[in-house]
């Protein structure tokens, strides 16, 4: 790993709205520069996307952007990010995604010119490569439309570039269901890292070419899948917490390749990235219950720079359209955090402590996200000489922290959870620090029909 030391070493400096390296945008947002902005994410209601429905699709996005910015304006918003996370058809046929960016950007520009409301679009093409099994990460014909959407979409106004890339997911899905921590390390720290290097090199080059912002990736398909499975009681929460920590070594590769933030909302590994690299991050918590449940409702906002809702369908609620309603919720949360920042260091720390204390001992996944624990784990994530060693060390530290919390009586977990702790520790300890040794250990036991080694440069 390129990073050898933390940019933020004091937990008290891991604060919402403040990042050591803020990101300035075209219309004047300074993300991480002293205030929290809302980041609204949305999607279509249940409908097909085809030639017959295309005008309806465009109308939905027009309505979403107009409704959200009008509400933000009414609430005296200081700035907004709108995330367009494209659906399969919008990336496969990039002209559709590009047209949506254009529509949304015109509305953003209108509110900026007419009312001075600054907003930017985060453009997040979905990773089409996962639609081939086994995935062809480097040679897929799907790469071309994805990159076309990135490039033409950023020209049309998608200023912040992100993706939830899926390299290694074909291996991690089964490993999650089997609680197989060694294969998770292989999927994220070996396959995921290699794919991130490949993909983010391209994204950063495009962003630099057009003067746009390479923002960051999210291990959503890995660690959020684990979180959701744990919420359903399919897998242990302690395992999901470790998957989150391991995902850091994969997601940080975007920054190593030149991404500058704000990291993507559904990447709950964001606090670790912020501590290590100093970039601003987007986070989501209670406001994302419209998309998925989580045990991180309040603590997720402890050091966010953008505050998001993950995704909501454009459907009618009693108050109005759902994205407009969520815009309001995000704005009020951001307003509270910003008021605390204006009031000074002590009030902002009190608010942060309340956000942390209300969740921290309720779930191991929340526990690892407290600023103190983020710093402790992040130090371990940098200690080794390989991504594999760092993933292992970080996960072992997370295990220590979970066991400390249990021993102190502050956190309680049922026996069916705690029985996994020694198993996970033994499995982690059996991982060699040297990456080649680890690959040699894993290749004979992994189902190689699921992935293509050459597609990862192996």
């Amino acid at each position, binding site marked *: 790993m390129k990073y050898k030391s933390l940019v933020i070493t004091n937990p008290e400096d891991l604060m919402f709205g403040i990042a050591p390296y803020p990101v300035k945008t075209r219309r004047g947002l300074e993300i991480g520069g002293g205030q929290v902005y809302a980041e609204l994410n949305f999607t279509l209601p*249940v409908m097909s996307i085809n030639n017959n429905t295309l005008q309806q699709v465009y109308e939905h996005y027009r309505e979403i952007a107009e409704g959200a910015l009008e509400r933000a304006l009414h609430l005296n918003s200081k700035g907004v990010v709108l995330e367009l996370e494209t659906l399969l058809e919008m990336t496969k046929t990039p002209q559709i995604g590009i047209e949506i960016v254009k529509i949304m950007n015109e509305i953003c520009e209108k509110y900026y010119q007419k009312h001075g409301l600054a907003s930017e679009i985060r453009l997040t093409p979905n990773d089409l490569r996962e639609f081939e099994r086994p995935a062809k990460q480097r040679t897929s014909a799907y790469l071309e439309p994805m990159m076309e959407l990135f490039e033409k979409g950023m020209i049309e106004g998608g200023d912040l570039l992100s993706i939830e890339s899926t390299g290694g997911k074909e291996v991690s899905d089964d490993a999650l269901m089997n609680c197989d921590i060694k294969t998770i390390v292989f999927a994220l720290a070996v396959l995921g890292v290699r794919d991130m290097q490949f993909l983010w090199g391209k994204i950063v080059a495009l962003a630099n070419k057009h003067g746009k912002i390479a923002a960051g990736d999210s291990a959503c398909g890995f660690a959020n899948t684990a979180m959701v499975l744990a919420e359903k009681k399919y*897998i242990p929460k302690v395992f999901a917490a470790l998957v989150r920590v391991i995902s850091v070594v994969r997601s940080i590769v975007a920054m190593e390749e030149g991404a500058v933030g704000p990291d993507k909302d559904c990447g709950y590994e964001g606090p670790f990235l912020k501590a290590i690299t100093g970039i601003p991050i987007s986070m989501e918590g209670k406001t994302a219950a419209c998309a998925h449940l989580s045990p991180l409702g309040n603590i997720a906002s402890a050091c966010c720079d953008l505050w998001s809702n993950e995704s909501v*369908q454009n459907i009618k609620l009693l108050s109005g359209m759902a994205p407009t309603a969520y815009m309001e919720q995000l704005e009020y949360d951001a307003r509270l955090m910003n008021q605390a920042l204006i009031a000074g260091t002590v009030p902002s720390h009190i608010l942060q402590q309340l956000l942390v204390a209300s969740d921290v001992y309720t779930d191991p996944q929340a526990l690892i996200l407290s600023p103190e624990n983020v710093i402790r784990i992040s130090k371990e994530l940098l200690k080794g000489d390989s991504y594999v060693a760092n993933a292992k060390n970080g996960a072992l530290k997370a295990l220590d922290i979970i066991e400390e919390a249990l021993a102190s009586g502050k956190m309680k977990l049922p026996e069916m959870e705690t029985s996994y702790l020694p198993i996970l520790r033994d499995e982690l300890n059996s991982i060699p620090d040297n990456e080649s040794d680890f690959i040699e250990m894993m290749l004979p036991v992994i189902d190689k029909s699921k992935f293509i080694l050459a597609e990862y440069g192996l």
Partner: protein
Amino acid sequence: MEELLEKLLEAVELGKVDFKSPYPPQLKGQDGALELTIKALETGVGPQQILENALVPAMDRVGKKFSENKIFVPQMLMSAKAMGASMLQLKPFFTSGEIKTKGTFIIGTVKGDLHDIGKNLVAMMVEGSGWTVVDLGVDVPSARYIEAVNNHPGAIVALSALLTTTMVNMGEIVSDIKANLSTTKVFIGGAPVNNEFCQKIGADFYAPDPQGVVEYLNRIAS
């Protein structure tokens, strides 16, 4: 004989695949499902008896424990592996027709969707309850479901989807199946769908979880 079947039931329930398997720790050094099935057959226990008195009740217990949140999926998967080891020994008797499953269950994730975690869980639990499972994989169009039913007359079909943009494909697939094979029962499942959607698209059954599918199938079988 009873004792052997009881041991086999325990081995499958706790996920003890074979003698050398380290899991579960409390059965270390003991025979697993593989050895116990071989012994049972050698001592004259009928294959149908093995299936009905050991394997199916074991997986039934596992399914119940899972639905009561007493075990996690990995433990259930270990039980499925143990059952698989036993089933391998019984395979010749299925082929010869000496033992029969409760029926055939065809499952796949609908076209446009590649999410298969939920589908795999359902397939595993249904197989464990004594059904023959034909897993069509992911991104499955109507034609493949229809082809599979033609190959397995009387089979029940299950469609899975995770995305709101792919659940709409379920309606088209249900229509195609019903148009070609009007008596075929079609189940649906997945995060974005519900009973109301099931009725709207003309499917026959919706279950919110794998255990719900198993319970409904077993009601049909009985």
